[in-house]
């Protein structure tokens, strides 16, 4: 290139001509533009790096491991202004636990504790025996009797309304033909109430109502009788459900009680109290008030001081997602990249072998080349749309890793094919000829004397294309990415094939979600920059690694 010539300066230097001045001006302008572009890029880079580093390197250790290894968390902000403390969910609950144990220990030290504990144990022993007792069999019969009495009261009232249409009409001041619809409305309302009262049976009541609905609509005296009969039958079955639930919840009470008895910790107590509440709600519906309820009241009284000791108030303002935590997203991105790379390299290499070794130049081949060339210019969102239509919907893979892999693979395929073909063509012709001369078939020749030498070049060039796949958001938006998922990809699999048919979180999509889909506030920026920082490092890391690898291999394989 030409470098600016320095002309010697002396008093008789001629004035610069207009053209020279113009030239200096224009070149200066061009130079300014070039450096402006570089400056913009550098500013973007610096902005993300500097602010993101604040999040990633904050806290006690050198690196904020929690940010990298946790699931997305809610941020809890305690206090305001100067004394404000920001805690992510895991830390917040840890602190809450600490405070709870502290309070519990003080409570345990008091005289009251032993006293109350003994009362609690005694009172709850009776409850524990209740569900295993024969009294439940008795309760079943009483339950049926009680409920059927209530039902027959209701039905006799309705029957009366239906039989004496004239007097009902005058009583309610309505027309005669409006009586039957009114009664059916009453019935529907009654079932609605029953659904609320008989909690455990609510589904069955709904089903019953739906089955009887035609009869309720065309209400006659005969129909009413049939409905009553059916309802009585239905109620006769009901206690079994309650009985089962009592045993189940009762067992839970015993287990949690024993746990509490042996450890006497606040958490064990919490579980015990929870089991008691569940048990009591079933019990109330099943057993009448007169059946040894006195124990229950005692129990409630004994529980309250323990509950007080457990309750720790730690008022905080909560901001979803702002606590950071991007581990599932990192894992998801890596999985997507590796899978897409594998698929695209297999497909791409076979395609390139065909193009470079087998394809005879002609109309067909030039069309294939044109298609590949055009594929490279198709917007990434179109690939997403294509993947959504083909893999997610037509092949019914749903939003899954597999669908994301194939979508991304198709997107980088042009790059991989071009790179592979170039690598194959750079193998000297002599390699092929010598192999063929020894009597090898064409495929053997490719397998033994072309592919092994071309493979390093293929791999490294392809990785460069795949680095692009790591940064893309649009293709995975509706083929593979979930906004939030509580399990990691290897957790909760029923069968090993499920691994491929699950959606994952991905860093680029996560950045989109946290910067556009969640409510923004003063605490979100930190986490956003931290995520962006990690993502940038990841993408730049993959890209520069592959460039380094390529340069090294290029030097190694030369002939």
């Amino acid at each position: 290139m030409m470098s600016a010539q320095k002309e010697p300066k002396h008093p008789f230097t001629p004035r610069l001509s207009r053209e020279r001045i113009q030239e200096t001006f224009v070149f200066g302008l061009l130079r300014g533009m070039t450096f402006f572009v570089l400056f913009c890029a550098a500013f973007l880079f610096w902005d993300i790096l500097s602010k993101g580093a604040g999040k990633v390197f904050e806290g006690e250790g050198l690196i904020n491991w929690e940010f990298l290894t946790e699931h997305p968390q809610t941020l809890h902000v305690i206090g305001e202004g100067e004394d404000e403390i920001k805690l992510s969910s895991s830390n917040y609950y840890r602190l809450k636990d600490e405070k709870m144990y502290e309070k519990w220990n003080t409570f345990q030290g008091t005289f009251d504790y032993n006293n109350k504990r003994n009362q609690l144990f005694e009172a709850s022993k009776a409850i524990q025996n209740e569900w295993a007792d024969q009294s439940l069999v008795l309760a079943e019969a009483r339950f049926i009797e009680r409920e059927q009495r209530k039902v027959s009261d209701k039905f006799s009232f309705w029957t009366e309304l239906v039989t004496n249409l004239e007097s009902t009409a005058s009583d309610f001041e309505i027309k005669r033909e409006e009586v039957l619809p009114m009664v059916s409305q009453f019935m529907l309302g009654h079932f609605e109430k029953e659904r609320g009262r008989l909690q455990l049976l609510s589904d069955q009541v709904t089903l019953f109502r739906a089955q009887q609905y035609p009869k309720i609509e065309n209400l006659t005296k005969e129909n009413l009788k049939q409905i009553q009969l059916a309802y009585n039958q239905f109620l006769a079955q009901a206690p079994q459900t309650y009985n089962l639930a009592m045993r189940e919840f009762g067992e839970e009470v015993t287990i949690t009680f024993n746990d509490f008895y042996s450890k006497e910790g606040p958490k064990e107590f919490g579980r015990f109290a929870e089991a008691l509440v569940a048990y009591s709600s079933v019990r109330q519906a099943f057993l009448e008030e007169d059946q040894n309820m006195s124990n229950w009241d005692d129990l409630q009284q004994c529980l309250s001081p323990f509950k007080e000791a457990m309750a720790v108030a730690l008022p905080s303002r909560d901001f979803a997602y702002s606590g950071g935590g991007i581990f599932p997203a990192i894992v998801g991105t890596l999985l997507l990249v590796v899978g897409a790379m594998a698929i695209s390299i297999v497909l791409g290499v076979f395609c390139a072998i065909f193009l470079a070794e087998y394809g005879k130049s002609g109309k067909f081949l030039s069309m294939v080349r044109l298609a590949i060339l055009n594929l490279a210019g198709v917007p990434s969102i179109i690939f997403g749309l294509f993947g959504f239509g083909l893999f997610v919907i037509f092949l019914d893979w749903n939003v899954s890793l597999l669908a994301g892999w194939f979508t991304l693979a198709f997107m980088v395929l042009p790059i991989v094919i071009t790179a592979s073909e170039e690598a194959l063509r750079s193998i000297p012709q002599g390699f092929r000829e010598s192999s063929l001369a020894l009597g090898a078939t064409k495929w053997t020749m490719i397998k033994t004397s072309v592919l092994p030498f071309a493979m390093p070049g293929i791999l490294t060039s392809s990785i460069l294309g795949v680095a692009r796949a790591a940064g893309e958001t649009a293709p995975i938006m509706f083929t593979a990415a979930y906004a939030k998922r509580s399990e990691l990809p290897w957790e909760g699999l029923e069968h090993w094939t499920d691994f491929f048919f699950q959606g994952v979180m991905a860093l680029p999509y996560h950045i989109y979600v946290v910067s556009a889909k969640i409510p923004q506030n003063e605490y979100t920026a930190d986490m956003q920059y931290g995520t962006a920082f990690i993502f940038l490092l990841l993408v730049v890391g993959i890209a520069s690694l592959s460039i380094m690898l390529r340069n090294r291999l290029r030097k190694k394989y030369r002939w």
Partner: protein
Amino acid sequence: MGKDWVTNSARHDWYGVLPLLSGSLLVSLIALALAIPFGVGSAIYVNQVATAREQTFIKPGIEFISAIPSVLIGFFGIAVLGGMVSLIADERLNSLTAGFLLALMTVPTIFTLAEDALNNVPRALRDASLSLGATRWQTCARVIFPSAITGIISAILLGFGRVIGETMVVLLCAGNRIAIPDFTSGLGVFAQPVHTMTGIIAQEMGEVEFGSIHYRALFMVGIALFLIALLVNFLSQTIAGRYKASY
């Protein structure tokens, strides 16, 4: 080519691509208006003026921009550039914000291809011009640039293809208001929030009911986009082919 895109309305949904197409074109116009001078200018600078030392960092530097994922550039737009744009416009996120960022993303494409084209101009042409006494700028403007013009145009077309197909930046930064820009407002037209073809697909595809008219309308938008991309590709290849033939 309806004028409205209204979904989830109580009465009647409209699926007209015009607001989206005009939004896409407006954003592309802004982006290209910035990216062409910067991309071509820096290509000329690097190819003709820069010293060898400058070249070693300018070229990789600009090419490195294309390695930055688009969602990060969009995020930067929301976090930083939006605030700067709001100094001169009413809203933080509008076609200007998206245009600036898209320009930054397109510069590497245009720069790389234009630089290639300039590089391919035979050296003899330049030497002949300089030996006739022309200044270097005159040589650039009247000899080298015209000879490379086809390559540069094909570079610009590819840049346009990249801009119109870009999704994340416009989805995050263009403001997402579905309306045909108000062209009567003079220069203010460049600072209105718009929605784009790529943006609408990305935004609504995930929530749409399979097989509904809305679903098909979105696929139709996708097909239109695909055809535009193919046309741009085809044009740039034809032009580049002619360029190759001329030397």
